[in-house]
């Protein structure tokens, strides 16, 4: 997808966790970042399941060809 280069451009958010003092809005900002993190954990769970299925297909196809 053409938006792919944009994915690598939001790295500054990593710096938010290191904000040195409690500032107005930080709880909401952290909640947004946590939501993104939770979503990514879910994504990883699906990715592991899908890649496991792929590995299963690879072994099955290898068995069919032997």
């Amino acid at each position, binding site marked *: *997808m*053409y938006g792919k280069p944009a*994915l*690598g451009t*939001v*790295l*500054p958010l*990593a710096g938010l966790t290191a904000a040195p003092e409690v500032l107005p809005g930080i709880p909401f*900002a952290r909640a947004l970042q946590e939501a993104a993190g939770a979503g990514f954990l879910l994504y990883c769970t699906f990715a592991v399941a899908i890649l496991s299925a792929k590995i299963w297909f690879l072994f099955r196809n290898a068995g069919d060809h032997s």
Partner: protein
Amino acid sequence: MITEVMLGASIALIVMAGTYNTGMFILSRRRIRHPRSPRTQRIYVFLLACLNEEKVLAESLARITALPAGNFLALVIDDASDDRTAEIARAADPRRVHLLQRQLPDARKGKGAALNNGIHHLRSSGILDGYDPRDVIVCVVDADGRLDQHVIQAVDPYFDDPRTGATQVGVRMYNRHKGLLARLQDMEFVIYGDIFQSARRYIGSVGMGGNGQFMRLAALDTLSAGHGGGPWSDSLTEDLDLGVRLIARGWTNQHCTTAAVSQQAVLDVKRLVRQRSRWFQGHLQSANLVPMILREIPGRAAVDLLYHLSSPVLILLTSLLPLSFVVATAGAVIGSIEAGRLLVSPMWIIGPYLLSFTAAYAYGWVYSRREREVGLGRAVLLSHAFVLYGYIWFAAGWWGLWRMLTGKQTWLKTART
């Protein structure tokens, strides 16, 4: 503890995307060699699916009929236009340009349906009688597409390899001089082609782009086999869908960096977001390709395609992060004003800048090599704007998701100017 894990996961998301982009950049810099093999005389057929394209069609046909190659023709598929589209096609060189007029209620069922009708017409009209489908190359061109004059000479060697099913050429914006938005779209397509598509040649996962997309007729036949409906699906991103299915059928997709098709950039932000929303929704629909990828596509290409197909999810997730950044920055400013002193170190800005805009230097370098009239310095400046321009996808993504969840499938096509 849970909070720390989720914050860490959000950072991992960014690191993963950055690592992937860096890997693709490195891979794209490798040179690829094509083995020489005996040349074959082929016929090229340009398919133009047109719905009310009177503003741009004449110029596109003029460029096609002026191609220096010998054996080619164009088929204009008029999808029940209300304007002078059919008249313009009839006025073009009749030895080169054929017209197929679709009629309502069968017309206006999407680009895929029109292209399928075009393939059916090529067969039933006898135009291709006597040609081996392996030597017939079908090229989809948008009505506003302006092909480089050497495009056939550039693409033809890729089809010397009998495994090549399709070859996508680069895409440029011919009106890229008309303001920053047009320039950034040009940069977007150059970077996508010269970095991501080029890298995917080594992975075996090159995608099709719907404009400047050359396909061997024999390869298209393998997609039609069994259901007779034609090679294209009714997906909003029928090009993405077709490219994946070709790979699944065992064909190799190529990306040609030495020729391009130029199209019209959208000059209005709202229309651009709408266009990208349509692409995004189509990308979401393409999730139904996952079972086919798992079953039929080899490992490395499959993993890349799965990542590619899942990128809408990643875009939606990462869209929360800039929002978080804006909120935090606003909080820092307000807090500092209230406290009467700076509550965050100015050094805090350096990290975010480096992390955000380092990629801009690589993108600027790539773009300056493709667009020589823009020097390296200006290209790097432009690519800073390009990084921010990428955020358009966040708005487009949520809009596309909303339309999908509410069951809206119909889209007005992007208007020409």
